[in-house]
């Protein structure tokens, strides 16, 4: 990949990100005139604009935008990472049970009528537990086999299936007037209830995940080789894979704990990024991050504004992501 082309890709993505961000600041069901918006952005907290505008903007719209940026980036980066580790382009961030575990944690806490903070902590914790269990079972079962990725994927499927069954169990006994719709809506994913507190909460695991993966992004190239080849390069495959999985899981669980199940982002964005800059992780990760930000922010804009009802984000990402994926498949077939 030529350095010139890389620069163009980064420049275009940065411009796109800025453009979508500016548009996102301006759109929403609550109308704020462009002039007032400018006043708001420059005079935060002062009485420069109508008090209600400021409150709506800073308490609702702005945190939601930031959440879309963070979650879009997190799901895309962890998706790209998992695809590399498992050497499989069909892998998405929920492969090891992080999303199913987190969803169960959330459903359980809605059922128990716990508050928002316990919900997110429980979701996050169960996400980690899900991956931890599939990873440790995977390691045990793969035993002396050199390559444990297939076993890992299978264990992930089993854990996901178990958590899905548990979610169904909770839904079965949840009160259909308030609890059940809340669980269902949560499972569909969405950022409608994001506040600045959620961002603070999410920032810690996300930062650890991002920093870890970016420092290890050169090793990710090696991890997509077979374990024998990795060993020949003097890298401890299992240990490196463990650290990388931990980082990717922090990203996934942190995102799901705040935004619920947002499908397809982690699958489709790495493909788009790979199309732009090729499979080298030192470029793929930053580009996935940028594309993920733009993608989720744009889709969430549609959720926020298209209808008077709140469209669940997960439905739209799937509706847009799935056909896009087909288009990418068709394209790569031709090449």
């Amino acid at each position: 990949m030529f350095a010139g082309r890389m620069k163009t890709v980064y420049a275009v993505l940065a411009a796109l990100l800025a453009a979508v961000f500016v548009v996102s600041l301006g759109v929403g069901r609550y109308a704020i005139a462009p002039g007032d918006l400018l006043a708001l952005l420059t005079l935060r907290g002062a009485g420069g604009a109508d008090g209600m505008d400021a409150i709506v903007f800073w308490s609702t719209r702005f945190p939601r935008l930031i959440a879309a940026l963070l979650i879009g980036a997190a799901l895309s980066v962890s998706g790209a990472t998992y695809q590399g580790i498992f050497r499989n382009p069909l892998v998405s961030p929920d492969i090891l049970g992080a999303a199913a575990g987190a969803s169960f944690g959330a459903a359980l806490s809605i059922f128990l009528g716990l508050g928002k903070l316990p919900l997110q902590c429980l979701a996050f914790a169960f996400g980690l537990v899900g991956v931890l269990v599939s990873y440790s079972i995977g390691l045990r079962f793969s035993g002396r086999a050199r390559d444990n990725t297939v076993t890992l994927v299978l264990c992930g499927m089993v854990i996901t299936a178990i958590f899905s069954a548990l979610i169904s169990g909770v839904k079965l006994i949840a009160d259909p007037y308030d609890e059940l719709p809340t669980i269902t809506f949560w499972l569909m994913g969405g950022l409608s209830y994001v506040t600045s507190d959620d961002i603070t909460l999410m920032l810690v695991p996300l930062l650890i995940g991002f920093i870890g993966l970016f420092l290890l992004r050169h090793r990710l190239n090696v991890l997509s080789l077979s374990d024998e080849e990795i060993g020949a390069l003097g890298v401890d495959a299992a240990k490196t894979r463990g650290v990388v999985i931990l980082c990717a899981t922090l990203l996934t669980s942190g995102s799901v704990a705040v935004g619920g199940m947002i499908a397809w982002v982690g699958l489709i964005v790495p493909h788009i990024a790979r199309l732009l800059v090729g499979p080298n992780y030192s470029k793929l990760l930053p580009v996935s991050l940028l594309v993920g930000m733009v993608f989720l922010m744009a889709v969430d804009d549609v959720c926020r504004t298209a209808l008077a009802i709140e469209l669940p984000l997960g439905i739209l990402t799937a509706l847009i992501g799935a056909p896009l994926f087909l288009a990418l498949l068709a394209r790569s077939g031709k090449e």
Partner: protein
Amino acid sequence: MGMRIKTWAGGGCRVLLAGALLLAFLLSGCGGKGADYRIEVEGALSEPGVITYLGHTMNVYKDQASNPCGDCALQPVSVFVGDGAAAVAAAIGDALENDFGGAGWALAAIDGGSLTLKRADSGGIGAGAAAPGAPTAPAGLTIKGGFGGNLKTGGADGSGSGGIGGTGAQIRNIKQFDGTLSEVPLVPERIAAVYGPSYEALVLLGAEDRIVARADVQTENFPWAEEVFANIGGLPVLEDVHAAVNIEQLLTYKPDLVYTFPRPNETAVLDKARVAWVEGATTKSLADVKELLRVFASGIGAEAQGRADVYAAWFDERLALVAGRTAGLPESGRPKVYYAGTDILTTYGRGSDIIEAIETAGGTAVSKELEGGNRINTDAEKLAAWNPDWIFIDHCGMSGSEGGAADEVAARAYANPKYAGISAIRDKQVVLTPSGVFYWDMGLQKILLVEYMAKTIHPELFEDLDMAAEVQDFYQTIFGYPLTRGQAEQILARQAP
């Protein structure tokens, strides 16, 4: 290749270094949050107004008599004109000690007009997210606050961060149904009725003309709501509220009080937007129905409690009448009753007040062995084993109109060979619950449901109970709407107006 491996090894070291730095950063962040917050009060209050501190609000009244909340006991801490610095500091300390809007802060020391506070929760990242704005107070009193020695005042212009409704708005503390305390405006002017049964409650409480937005579910199955409630047809509607509320859309109507679903993620956003809320709840006993209404009334103010009393009196009188006649029934004289919602295999567990409603009406609630609350799933075998004598079906819409949804539900139950052996089906004792302005299995009309079930399963005990007259009286007393006898009969027959 050797070079590259070396780079990877270097990467490992950098991970450790970055991790250590991150940890140090996080720990230092915690340390910063642990700093003491100090409030210094000087002078004395010379006029009424509002004191704000730590994002919360305390009313300053002219004197005891002018407390606009009347004698309401839900205003536990307040101060008066003439109070000095020590009294104000003590009141703030009191409020924090009792957790009235002081969540996240604990009183460490108090000395005259000087308060020292500590973060109460170490794990509450959310609570520590925003630095509190500088405190403000009305004329005469100077109040400063800040971390360490860095004390600031927000000034009388109110640039400090106020509680609900922005700085300077007068507030009251109320107790939600689950016992937690919240702030609401002293006199709410713009109310959003998002929670399904909150609309009928607000009509009863005399606040319908203050509603600025309502939910789709309040008219979806209830043509009678548009007939009986004066304003409901003309109000903006929030769609799909059972799943989620579009918060920006809701804020477009600029509500100062929202009656909403018990969904913590939603109320958290409302808190951030400084909009007060009162949340609904699943009522677990018949007494809860009155209690939830009292909570709804506390959101409106003292005068609304009188309307809640009117409801409680009607409720208690009818409940006593029914219970008085069914109390002596022997076990054998209590038919087995099964209550279904929407689908015949959806029922109510022991966490629902429907169980108590059935037993008060003189029946045996077969589903009381089930865990869970409203509308939980059961199966055909269990239903067959219970073999109820009566089946009531709620949530099935209107008869005749809209394709006769309700009649179809009954017809399907009678036609299904699976249920053919059940007494209620064999004896044609499947009853469709009326609705009127809202569902009868939740909300205010639950007392009508108790009477209706009692009269249905024990006609011999309630020969003199005229359901149409009861419905007329209820709508007149509770909603102030004069139903004709014909209209009341239409409601009982689930016909649209």
